């Protein structure tokens, strides 16, 4: 089915389709993004941020760009019986990067959900000049550039000032590829205005016969005193490939918490950058991944402290089985003015097989002199002393291992405040670790 394609052929194939697509942003922005993508090209292992994250699957699967008219929305039916369809949320469906028009109205007051392309010119140009693509850099970010050049739809979620959103907003990304492999470029813009509170859940679901690549860019703007809980769930199949870039801009006194739970997916690269763009901000990134087979999970994070008196915490845990690979690269950047910064970072990994690999690299870059920053990373096999303690009380070895691994994962999952989602994930992890 699949034919090998060289990296430059793949790149040129995409570029050649550029003119036939209806892009989102101003033509000059798109052209600029395209030029950035063209000049950087597809990263190789020689690029610092892709050192351990091989992209050979791009050559193998020959992904095609999909047009709006080609989207098969009947795939929505396949999600109907998924447990995540039953948790109480307000759902927004994105199929192959395109929103489903029927569910673009929020039931909740103070919440507006729209397509960027549906807005009138005045609104659109205001959003574009204030928010869209304003916080992300295209240079050295070939996949962000690719998305910016090729995104054909963008969902804009706006939470009005002081709105407390009771029901979480769930963005259900669905990938469907058949008979060709497909690359999707979904785009999301979330604006949580001053004093608002909300929970946003993103989940990814891949169907079809051929591999999908979700190359997504999401921008979150969190206003003064706003509070956002953000959960990203990936419990997907071997057809699933993701390169995701999330940029979070926080203003003073805001609170942001990201919990990333990844339980399956062939290739899953996450970039999450937070900009602490004000004082007294709390910014927490946490996540747990369980990989098996030949899966790869990669998280590249950046906590960018630009102002004084902020706190950031980062806590990622990995459980690796089979021949899987995990990559953690977490950077804390404390700029010159960001005095009294408190930044903490931890990455702990358990390798359950001799052929699983983990590459972990914490980075601190500090230009202020009155800060508290710490980081720590551990990687190793399961602690035999702990296992023996449980076994010596009559618990079978397999069960003892599962108990300890569940405890590691649940430590992160317990951070999810939405109870039905939390309970669903605890159960999923338990089943997965008992397989």
């Amino acid at each position, binding site marked *: 089915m699949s034919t090998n394609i060289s990296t430059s052929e793949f790149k040129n194939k995409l570029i050649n389709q550029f003119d036939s697509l209806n892009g989102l942003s101003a033509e000059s922005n798109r052209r600029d993004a395209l030029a950035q993508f063209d000049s950087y090209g597809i990263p190789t292992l020689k690029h610092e941020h892709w050192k351990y994250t091989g992209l050979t699957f791009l050559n193998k699967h020959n992904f095609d760009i999909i047009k709006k008219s080609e989207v098969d929305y009947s795939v929505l039916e396949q999600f109907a019986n998924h447990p995540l369809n039953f948790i109480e949320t307000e759902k927004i469906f994105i199929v192959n990067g395109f929103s489903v028009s029927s569910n673009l109205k929020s039931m909740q007051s103070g919440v507006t959900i729209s397509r960027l392309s549906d807005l009138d010119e005045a609104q659109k140009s205001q959003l574009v000049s204030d928010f869209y693509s304003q916080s992300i850099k295209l240079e050295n970010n070939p996949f962000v550039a690719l998305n910016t050049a090729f995104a054909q739809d963008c969902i804009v979620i706006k939470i009005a000032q002081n709105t407390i959103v009771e029901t979480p907003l769930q963005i259900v990304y669905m990938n469907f590829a058949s008979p060709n492999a497909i690359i999707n470029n979904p785009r999301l813009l979330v604006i949580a205005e001053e004093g608002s509170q909300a929970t946003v859940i993103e989940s990814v679901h891949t169907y079809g016969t051929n591999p999908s690549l979700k190359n997504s860019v999401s921008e979150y703007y969190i206003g003064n005193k706003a509070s956002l809980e953000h959960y990203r769930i990936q419990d997907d199949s071997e057809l699933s490939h993701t390169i995701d870039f999330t940029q979070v801009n926080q203003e003073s006194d805001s609170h942001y918490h990201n919990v990333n739970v990844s339980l399956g997916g062939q290739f899953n690269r996450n970039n999450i950058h937070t900009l602490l763009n004000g004082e007294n901000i709390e910014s927490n990134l946490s996540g747990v991944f369980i990989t098996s087979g030949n899966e790869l999970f990669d998280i590249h994070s950046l906590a960018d402290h630009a102002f004084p008196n902020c706190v950031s915490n980062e806590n990622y845990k990995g459980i690796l089985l089979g021949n899987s690979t995990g990559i953690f690269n977490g950077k804390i950047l404390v700029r010159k003015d960001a005095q009294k910064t408190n930044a903490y970072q931890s990455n702990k990994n358990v390798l359950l097989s001799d052929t699983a690999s983990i590459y972990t690299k914490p980075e601190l870059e500090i230009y202020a002199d009155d800060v508290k920053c710490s980081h720590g990373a551990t990687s190793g096999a399961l602690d035999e002393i702990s296992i023996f303690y449980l*076994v010596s*009380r*009559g618990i079978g070895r397999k069960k003892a291992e599962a108990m300890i691994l569940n405890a590691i994962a649940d430590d992160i999952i317990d951070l999810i405040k939405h109870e039905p989602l939390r309970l669903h994930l605890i159960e999923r992890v338990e089943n997965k670790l008992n397989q």
Partner: protein
Amino acid sequence: MALIEIKNLKANIYGNEILHGLNLTINPGEIHAIMGPNGSGKSTLASVLAGKEEFEVTEGTVTFEGHDLLDMSPEDRARAGVFLAFQYPVEIPGVSNANFLKTAINEIRKYRKQDPLDAMDFLQMMKERAKLVEIDSTFLSRSVNVGFSGGEKKKNEIFQMAMLEPKFAVLDETDSGLDIDAMKVVANGVNKLKTDDNAFLIITHYQRLLDYIIPDYVHVLSEGRIIKSGGKELAYELEERGYDWVKAEAIA
């Protein structure tokens, strides 16, 4: 029939032989104490009985209720009724005491072909047995040994013993690091759990625990062998005179 019979036991760790032919027989209803200087093999004996993999048995037998104990996996030994109170209890973050013990009890019950304990009975049992070792029942929902003081960890060992109701329990230096009040609680727990059907092996450096748990037999372990056995008065003599005279006697 003896509850446990250890014959000519030789064991090594990473090639160093620690036990050089140890013999010990314990009957139901008995409390035995093993004393001895550092490095004599006390903890090795405890580890070998519990089934720690790093220790290799090269010779000898251990028969527990007529079964070859050394042939059993560590979990099956526990299920059959062997319990080790650890010298250094292990912290298990994220696993609550309640979940830990419920899992353990039900695995043991499954092995014995009994139905699992229902949640209410289990809770009731936990509360009762917690009183026995004077621990606060709020600790039951906390992670196993995490944030516990040295004394609380040792009490938790005795609490686990009370919950699992072993036939044969080895207390590996449970008294080390305990203040006198905590030691009394631990001793009191053991005394209350003692019946005519079970037996205890108390491993200790010092005689003071034996003021509260009165042993039927005291053995001196030196260089991997039991070199002298006696009644409880032997413990006092050791406390007063040290171990050298026993060693000298053994050589002569």
